[in-house]
């Protein structure tokens, strides 16, 4: 049974700054979500609330339809893996893994199998691990928690490319083996994009967009060609970015409707896709007003 997650009118203040302001978000059960946002946008705050690491200043957080705060039946099946993990540094790797057994659903055998896959030295102390190995340990504990809502917050930090690849593969395998809700918060957008079903963009404490991945992928377009022709087609469209090289201009638009696409094609413009990462960069541009 995987968990739904909802935030209703949630505000989180740290002293007088709003980390999250009046956030409403509904996540269906059993999907892999990508949570994107610039540093300080509120990603970690959002995840901390979902995992009951913090209490919201106001509003309601429901996981699997129940309030998450101080709800043992729920939090024991929710896992938030923060960057570097939450371990007792004096513990050995093995002991750190065993601590996971606090969750009745924890799969120790699977954890040890994963530890071998990620070449974790079981007898070493957690504090002696490199940053990458520490992240791998955190990832292992997150996967083996076999939670109904599993969240990874920048868990890839310090992992090298092959380790990240192995992690994504294991995550996908675990997900297919046992459908549950997953939220991945990361800056390596292009690396994870294809694993996602829906994407949530957080910006300045608010949910900027929440759409299916495909919506984002079909959203933007880059028009390249003679400056005058580009300007003519782009007029009236939401232009996210412009670049000019001599007489050639490239304009990135937020959305290209079929009519505009036809006009662009007719004027011989080159129409290119905008990757999720570029779209994200444009959408969260600090100079942009709203979206």
């Amino acid at each position: 049974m995987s968990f739904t997650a909802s935030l209703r009118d949630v505000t989180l203040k740290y002293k007088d700054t709003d980390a999250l302001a009046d956030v409403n978000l509904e996540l269906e059960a059993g999907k892999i979500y990508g949570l994107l946002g610039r540093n300080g946008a509120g990603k970690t705050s959002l995840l901390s609330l979902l995992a009951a690491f913090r209490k919201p200043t106001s509003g309601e957080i429901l996981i699997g339809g129940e309030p998450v705060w101080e709800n043992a039946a729920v939090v024991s099946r929710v896992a938030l893996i923060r960057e570097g993990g939450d371990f007792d540094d004096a513990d050995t790797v093995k002991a750190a893994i065993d601590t996971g057994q606090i969750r009745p659903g924890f799969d120790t055998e699977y954890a040890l199998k994963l530890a071998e896959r990620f070449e974790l030295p079981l007898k070493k102390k957690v504090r002696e691990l490199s940053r990458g190995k520490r992240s791998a340990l955190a990832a292992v504990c997150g996967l083996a928690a076999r939670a109904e809502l599993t969240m990874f917050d920048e868990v890839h930090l310090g992992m090298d490319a092959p380790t990240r690849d192995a992690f994504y593969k294991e995550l996908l395998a675990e997900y297919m083996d046992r459908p549950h809700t997953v939220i991945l918060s990361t800056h390596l957008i292009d690396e994870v994009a294809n694993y996602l079903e829906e994407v949530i963009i957080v910006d300045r404490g608010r949910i900027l967009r929440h759409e299916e991945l495909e919506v984002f992928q079909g959203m933007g377009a880059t028009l390249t060609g003679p400056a005058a022709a580009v300007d003519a087609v782009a007029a009236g469209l939401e232009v996210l970015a412009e670049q000019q090289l001599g007489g050639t201009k490239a304009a990135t638009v937020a959305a290209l409707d079929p009519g505009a696409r036809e006009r662009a094609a007719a004027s011989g413009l080159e129409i290119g896709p905008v990757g999720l990462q570029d779209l994200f960069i444009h959408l969260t541009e600090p100079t942009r007003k709203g979206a």
Partner: protein
Amino acid sequence: MPALQHLTLPNRRFALGAGFAVEAVKYFKYWILAAVAIAFLGPLALSQYRDIDLSTWYYTANIAKWFTSFVAGGFLFTLVPNMIAAGMTRRELSVAMGVFGLLWSAALGALVFAGILAERAYYGAMGWSQGIDAQGTISAIGTWGETAAFAAVYPLMYLAYFAAGAVIGAAAYRWENSGWLLLVPILPVVFSLDNAVYDTEPFGPAWAGVLGRFMEDWGRGVVLTGVVIVAAGLAVATRQILLDIPLRSKKA
């Protein structure tokens, strides 16, 4: 923690509390063994040079109080983020901590109780006097019955020191820069009560025993009741601090 295998949700807080106690003993086993060894062998070495008229176990038992506070505070400080991140509620953690405190105090209290009685037999056999330094004059603890009564208070004292350590550990996690300052009001209260129980010179910084002069005339029963009330109050305070404690954010 081997105690965690096959646990169920409703009982995990108890299993975990027991697990903490086992872990703590395992972690400090050599320290504890060394302390016991010194308590028995120290006077033997010292007897080469002077007459033995002070109980070494009395000192060991007192150091164990500070040690208990340190264990409670240190454990809780690390446990808060680790246990909550591992999917526990704050209520469960506070119950587990209570179980830990009871088991720890009982076990350590039993060890000290046995130690002091064994010491009485040992001193008797060696022809030494098992005494304590009560306000400048050294007086013998007394008969077997008096010795047992003297030693029987330790489990309760450890519980009070455990609760004091726990509340400071929880506060230090919660209020990053100022939480530890809770020491300032707590230390004199616990410490003065402690001194009042034995009617001795403060075992530790003298200023901390300042409240003791208000308690000098209290009877032993009243003082012990005071210890129970303070221990309970500190336990409740720990729980209150834990109940809506937020996990600190990770340093970027």
